[in-house]
């Protein structure tokens, strides 16, 4: 790894954090709990999401511990079922869906478009409270004895054959859904109505485009999940028979309704991460993103196509051959925009001036792991291949590659990238690079063996398995240990950096976005004067000119 860097910090002996910022604008717990400031809300989300991430991660640890041995010997079968259900519910609804949008998106999106805040600050705060409320319900389900439906709440198992806290968990997910809907609504309206003068759509950073696309999915898809959960809860509570075959209902209807949201949900999860990658790769190659228009439109294409592929989760469930064909074809089509992005990002590196700071390392990790994850999605979209691979560990590996290898790496890239902006301080570079490396290695060791396990036929959600699968499972658990360390390290050094990190200044990365032209941490109102935008996104020539100009006037 080269020692070259683009980081330009103010001289540390004299550097101070700005006297006035959003952090010290007001004091007291109530000023945080009743804030309308999108930046403070982002910090609130950051803390709560991290909390739930570690609970979900603990569940993952338990899963991998159980799977060290072929027998179901660490915990009771029911307990294991509750553990993986909790892992899924928490990680999907309380971590991945809000991760980038609610923390990074909330923080930087208004600044990126040149606004003082999101369109509806109070709704933003409401979103956070709904999230907390949802988290409470989910924790309640956990503490009261758990729920063991899997994160997919499949009927008729969830409605008639379990006596665990399905309704509590269902309500938690329902509320989390509305938190997500309000965030998405806020973003869409903000991007439409709050852009600064001169900030046309095609001057927006690609981060904004990807959040816009994800917000469309949030706003249109999540309500369907909400109503599906309502029907499941009603069926469980009073026995209406909408999904019950003995009463004339159809359990497959639940699958259609559930996956109608849950497929777009995965694009809700990944698109914001892709936005982060665009920003990071551009900054650390000192270059505009190659094919800006293609990348922008590919985000929208993913969102649109993403609504039409849900039944690829149901290929073997008795959908007609005709609909299987249609959904497989559309699945192949939805894979193409993601490929376009990967190639555009790679092309951005061409003739760039590349440095390898931590966010860039995570971005590289993303590119490799998301490529694998995405390509294995093509495996699964292929009908005949899916028959053998579905419902096995191949699926588990596939979605962990895209969600963890892809999305979580992008989230960490984003957190590291915007940390100086959010806190005014730099994290320790050497340690963060180590953590990135450890995470990458741990991740591959954990999840690559699972592809092999899947092809061998090991089913998912199994606590016990045939002994010949043990070696691979042990490898996977070993990797999980390493991965856990990789995730724990940032917790430690980021917290350390709050007090002891180097002062970052307004633009340590010398990046082009509007957020880097204001102080770190920003003022509550973001801008002293409303910016007027007259340059493209990622305009490094403009940045160079501006920096020169500054040097001249300040002298």
């Amino acid at each position: 790894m080269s020692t070259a860097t683009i980081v330009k910090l103010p001289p540390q002996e004299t550097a101070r954090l700005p006297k006035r910022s959003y952090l010290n604008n007001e004091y007291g717990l109530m000023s945080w709990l009743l804030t309308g400031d999108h930046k403070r809300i982002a910090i609130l989300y950051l803390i709560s999401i991290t909390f739930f991430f570690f609970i979900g991660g603990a569940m993952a640890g338990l899963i991998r511990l159980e799977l060290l041995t072929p027998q179901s010997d660490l915990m009771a079968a029911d307990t294991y079922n509750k553990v993986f259900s909790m892992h899924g519910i928490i990680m999907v609804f309380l971590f991945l869906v809000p991760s980038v949008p609610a923390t990074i998106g909330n923080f930087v999106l208004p600044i990126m478009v040149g606004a003082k805040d999101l369109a509806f600050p109070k709704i933003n705060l409401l979103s956070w409270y709904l999230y907390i409320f949802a988290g409470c319900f989910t924790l309640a389900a956990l503490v009261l004895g758990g729920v063991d439906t899997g994160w997919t709440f499949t009927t008729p198992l969830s409605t008639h054959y379990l006596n665990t806290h399905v309704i509590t968990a269902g309500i938690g997910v329902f509320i989390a859904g509305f938190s997500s809907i309000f965030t998405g609504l806020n973003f869409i309206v903000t991007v439409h109505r709050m852009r600064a003068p001169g900030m046309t759509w095609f001057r927006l950073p690609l981060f904004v485009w990807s959040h816009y696309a994800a917000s469309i999915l949030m706003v249109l898809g999540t309500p369907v999940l909400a109503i599906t959960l309502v029907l499941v809860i009603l069926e469980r509570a009073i026995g209406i028979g909408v999904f019950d075959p003995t009463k004339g209902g159809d359990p497959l209807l639940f699958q259609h309704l559930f996956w109608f949201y849950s497929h777009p949900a995965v694009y809700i999860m990944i698109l914001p991460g892709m936005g982060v990658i665009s920003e990071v790769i551009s900054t650390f190659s000192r270059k505009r993103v190659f094919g800006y228009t293609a990348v922008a439109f590919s985000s929208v294409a993913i969102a649109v196509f993403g609504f039409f592929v849900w039944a690829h989760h149901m290929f073997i469930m008795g959908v007609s051959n005709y609909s299987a064909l249609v959904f497989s074809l559309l699945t192949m089509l939805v894979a193409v925009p993601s490929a376009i992005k990967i190639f555009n990002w790679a092309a951005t590196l061409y003739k760039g001036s590349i440095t390898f700071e931590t966010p860039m390392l995570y971005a590289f990790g993303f590119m490799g792991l998301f490529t694998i994850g995405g390509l294995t999605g093509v495996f699964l979209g292929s009908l005949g291949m899916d028959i053998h691979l579905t419902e096995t560990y191949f699926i588990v590996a596939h979605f962990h590659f895209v969600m963890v290898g892809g999305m979580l790496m992008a989230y960490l890239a984003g957190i590291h990238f915007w940390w100086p902006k959010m806190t005014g301080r730099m994290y320790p570079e050497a340690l963060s690079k180590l953590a990135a490396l450890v995470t990458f290695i741990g991740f591959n060791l954990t999840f690559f063996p699972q592809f092999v396990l899947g092809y061998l036929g090991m089913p998912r959600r199994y606590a016990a398995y045939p002994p010949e699968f043990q070696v691979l499972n042990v490898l996977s658990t070993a990797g999980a240990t390493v991965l856990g360390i990789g995730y724990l390290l940032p917790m430690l050094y980021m917290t350390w950096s709050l007090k002891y990190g180097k002062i970052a200044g307004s633009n340590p990365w010398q990046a082009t976005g509007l957020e880097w032209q204001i102080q770190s941490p920003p003022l509550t109102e973001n801008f002293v004067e409303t910016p007027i935008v007259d340059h493209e996104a990622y305009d490094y020539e403009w940045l160079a000119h501006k920096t020169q100009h500054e040097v001249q006037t300040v002298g």
Partner: protein
Amino acid sequence: MDSQAIATQPAHGQEEHGHPPYLRHHFATVEQQRETASFGMWLFLLTEIMFFGGMFTAYMIYRNWYYPAFVAGSHQLKIWAGTMNTAVLICSSFTMAMGVHAAEIRKRSALLRWLTLTILLGTVFLGIKAYEWHDEWVHHHVPGLNFSISDFTHVDPHYLADKPLPPDMAEKTQVYFSLYFAMTGMHALHMIIGVSILLILLVKAWGGAYTTGHMTTIENFGLYWHFVDIVWIFLFPLLYLISRHQ
């Protein structure tokens, strides 16, 4: 070192005291604030369409599969109640629209009057609905809790043209009623929320909040109220008017 904004626009501070008190500071103009709030409400209503859409989808599928059961179930509903409710809601949309107009022309007493009428009409709707639900409970048409198919396997004196259903099709009426309660229940929930908000708006309007030129809240709530009305306009024929042409 900390560069400020790129701006060349005059600082907002100079106009600071020239704007109305209801202009939120993250908006540049009142116009922007109004348009943004309106956009937000329309988008929210779009999510509501998707929300109800799931149930409409389920309804369409099951009505296609179990049509005779849906006919029999629908004939059990009291059409006078449904019709009256439809009229009540349409009137309440009218009173709501008049209330928005009153806010526009800044007539506080008119606004209060129209809001009160809307609340009354909304409450009448809920009352009739409650009566219907009670009636269905009495007749054992509540799925899961006390459902009985005997009404469907015997001749209905009110619908002599209807043949009694065979037991297996009669069982499917439970699906019809499941959807009936889910859909009207969800609609009623939205009505209750609407009436509650209306009460708050009424109190605020009493204090003069919406007749000083800033009536965005009333306007946008009006959108919500009309939406809830439109959902009912769809629910009424789908649930009450199946094969009633006799």
